[in-house]
């Protein structure tokens, strides 16, 4: 007999988690929604630029097919293609739904949604709401969930931290243990299905463009409990971050999409006021190297180019690792109406007006393409995702699902700009429907599971907390985190070398040992911020090892994973049909034979066990290397 009133938990209230919550509630199920803080403050609010969907309202003959190709190629073919196809096909419908939910999309003079250009594509395909698109999308979901709170289907647990899942003897997920961040008590929550939607992991790199909560700790916890993790080594470095002490605030790709230009002075070490440097003394290196896409090449390409100019050639502004992002040639009124949000951020934090003075930027850790491994079911007739299916977005642990930035499905080796608000929303919607389908098929409820599995897990969590609280004169968790971040940026960054990756793995072992000796200055049992932080640091170190080990073993260049020692360079000035280019294509395809595979990490006490999985390339066969020249 089916379970009458299934218990469902969603952990995380960003775009992914809120969409999941909405769809589960709409199927008439009750949802317990967990978040570290009020879900309205989730990291999704930071997204500025926009969300992709082919609406083709700009007379450019844009097509869904082109969106699919751009996403697959942009990700260097590393994503399984049926889910990508399904996402791109559903994108316009998702945008229409958001429109009905009241999102304040920017409008054309006739009152329809406007579109802008983003990186890695040639057509305008990015829907936006000023320069605070993520905030607007997040709020629209927050509002729908509030409606379901009002009608009794959603119960929020805000200021609660997910610590672990509870597994039964068959390895099935039957609930969670969470920490009340006010009373500091751990509690058991039984559940028939659990969704992890806890966002990105930028904080493993210390400074990043992410919010303070994007630690990846929750993903690390389920990984340590047996969930597979995929493609960890694929980290996106956003080309245009503001260098900062506490955070590298992002200057959206929209700045380039709207006409912003990247340059450095032609004279090495030049520190002249940029406005006094004449045109012919400026080096617009992206436009020179990639005439077809210019400043809107994909992120990995732009970040590496900036890295090359600064680190390899020493041509950064004043000899430092800095370049200009220049908007000053564009009309101020245009900029204010299209980019207000980011102009404000720059002005606020750098103290100068980017409409008048070129911005100073450098690449920053931004996004994790990899994440928790999830399953999907193919519809053999359409070559698409079969929907709904309980397999979609289910992790390798039955009953445990994942969506949003913490799952690794859609972006392969590199994510295109404005594609992750899409994947977070879309995967949330899909997972909501999968969970609803999954619980329908259950015959035994969590209430019938043996009580010991819950009490044991709770005890385990409490003893970890007690250990940290009772240590003294040990490691300071904040300093330990800083050490981890500095090391990751230095050794597992935009450009990677095996020697440095080996050193990084050594260092991680050391940090892991030291993280067992964390002690706290705050021992209070009320709203103690240090205890959850300490636990996050421990779990970040574990995930850092997954990232680094994956990077060490993958000897090639693909999207976010770049090892110059294994580069197959595109022959300069040669294009498809030229013998040199065809020779390059042959080598590139040969490399695909070896490396066009999903990295899968499984937790083991002495470090991650890595294996590789075949990729479904049934939509677009990998024959065209990425080429943005």
């Amino acid at each position: 007999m089916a379970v009458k009133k299934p218990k469902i938990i969603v952990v995380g209230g960003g775009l992914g988690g809120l969409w999941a919550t909405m769809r589960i509630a709409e199927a008439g199920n009750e949802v317990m929604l967990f978040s570290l803080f009020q879900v309205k403050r989730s990291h999704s609010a930071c997204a500025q630029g926009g969300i992709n969907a082919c609406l083709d309202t700009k007379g450019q003959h844009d097509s869904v097919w082109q969106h699919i190709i751009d996403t697959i190629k942009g990700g260097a073919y590393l994503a399984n293609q049926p889910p990508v196809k399904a996402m791109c096909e559903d994108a316009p419908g998702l945008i229409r739904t958001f429109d009905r939910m009241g999102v304040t999309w920017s409008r054309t003079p006739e009152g329809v949604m406007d579109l802008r250009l983003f990186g890695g594509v040639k057509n305008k395909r990015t829907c936006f709401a000023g320069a605070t698109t993520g905030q607007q999308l997040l709020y629209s979901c927050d509002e729908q969930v509030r409606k379901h709170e009002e009608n009794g289907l959603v119960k929020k647990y805000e200021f609660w931290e997910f610590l672990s899942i509870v597994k039964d003897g068959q390895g099935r997920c039957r609930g969670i243990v969470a920490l009340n961040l006010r009373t500091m008590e751990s509690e058991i929550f039984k559940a028939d299905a659990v969704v992890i939607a806890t966002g990105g992991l930028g904080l493993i790199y210390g400074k990043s463009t992410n919010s303070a909560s994007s630690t990846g700790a929750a993903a690390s916890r389920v990984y340590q409990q047996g969930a597979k993790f995929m493609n960890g080594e694929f980290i996106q470095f956003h080309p245009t971050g503001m260098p900062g002490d506490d955070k590298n605030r992002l200057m959206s790709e929209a700045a380039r999409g709207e006409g912003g230009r990247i340059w450095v002075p032609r004279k090495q070490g030049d520190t002249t006021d940029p406005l006094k440097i004449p045109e012919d003394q400026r080096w617009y290196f992206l436009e020179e190297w990639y005439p077809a896409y210019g400043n809107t090449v994909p992120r990995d390409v732009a970040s590496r180019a900036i890295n090359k100019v600064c680190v390899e050639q020493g041509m950064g502004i004043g000899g430092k690792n800095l370049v200009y992002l220049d908007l000053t040639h564009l009309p101020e009124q245009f900029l204010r109406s299209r980019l207000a949000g980011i102009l404000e951020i720059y002005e606020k934090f750098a103290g100068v007006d980017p409409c008048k003075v070129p911005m100073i930027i450098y690449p920053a850790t931004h996004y994790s393409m990899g994440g928790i491994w999830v399953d999907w079911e193919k519809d053999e007739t359409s070559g698409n995702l079969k929907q709904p299916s309980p397999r979609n977005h289910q992790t390798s642990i039955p009953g445990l699902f994942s969506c949003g930035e913490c799952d690794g499905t859609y972006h392969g080796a590199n994510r295109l700009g404005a594609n992750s608000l899409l994947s977070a929303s879309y995967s949330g919607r899909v997972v909501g429907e999968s969970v609803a389908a999954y619980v329908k098929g259950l015959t035994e409820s969590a209430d019938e599971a043996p009580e010991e599995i819950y009490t044991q897990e709770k005890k385990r969590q409490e003893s970890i907390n007690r250990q940290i609280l009772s240590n003294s004169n040990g490691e300071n968790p904040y300093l330990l985190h800083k050490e981890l971040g500095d090391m990751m940026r230095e050794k597992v960054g935009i450009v990677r070398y095996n020697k440095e990756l080996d050193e990084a793995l050594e260092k991680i072992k050391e940090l892991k040992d030291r993280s067992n000796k964390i002690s706290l200055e705050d021992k209070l049992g009320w709203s103690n911020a240090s205890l959850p932080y300490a636990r996050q640091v421990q779990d970040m170190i574990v995930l850092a090892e997954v990232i680094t080990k994956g990077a060490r073993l993958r000897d090639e260049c693909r999207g976010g994973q770049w090892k110059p020692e294994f580069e197959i360079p595109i022959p300069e000035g040669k294009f498809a049909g030229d013998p040199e280019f065809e020779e390059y294509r042959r080598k590139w395809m040969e490399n695909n034979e070896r490396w066009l595979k999903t990295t899968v990490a499984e937790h083991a006490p002495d470090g991650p066990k890595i294996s590789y999985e075949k990729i479904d390339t049934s939509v677009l066969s990998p024959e065209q290397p990425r080429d943005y020249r």
Partner: protein
Amino acid sequence: MPEVIRFKVKRQQNPDSKPYWEEFQVPYRPQHNVISVLMALRENPVNIKGERVAPVVYEVGCMEEVCGACTMIINGKVRQACSALIDQLEQPLVLEPMTKFPVVRDLMVDRQKMFDDLRKVRAWIDIDGGYDIHVHAPRISPKDWVMNYDFSRCMTCGCCMEVCPQFHPKSQFVGPAPIGQAWLFSNHPTGKFYKEERLHALMGPGGITDCGNAQNCIEACPKDIKLTDAIAKIGRETTIQVFKDLFLK
């Protein structure tokens, strides 16, 4: 150039304990903001007397003034700590929790009331469900867009509530932010189907008539949201609604 950043924090261990002041300093760095100073303190939490103490507890999220989490009173003014640049502030900095919400611990307060009131004023658009119905919502004129976008940037930070003389722990008044949201959803082409319900929620005790029109709120909003416009419009419309209720039903 100053070598240290000095600051005083009004601390409180829990909602029921007595507040106390504690003074700190951290090494100076250019471009520091109040949050990055509090982060630096965590690395070596020692007060000015040289005593090791628990790091100051505060709320933080985006670190770019878009989530509203880090709101507190800095040198007497309520604002977001992450965008409060040290170089533009007088020292010692004086950091206090907001006063209109219950203190949880140190600089962290409980703003749940604001979120509850968003439920009260039905701050959402009623849709059939989160699936495609193959049409867009009605068009919105660029002028309406400008107004709606303005209000939809409200990050529920509470600055406007902190400065409102009518809003305090003992009053029932919903305060300016939820009124702004009630207006936003009633200015949407399909949201306005439920305008009447929103107006009713804002009539009576704790509703719009409790506003004393002091205009403090609009001054304090970090996003320059035109709260008093919304209050005026909702005020007029509730008056009309009162008559409608009297004579048309």
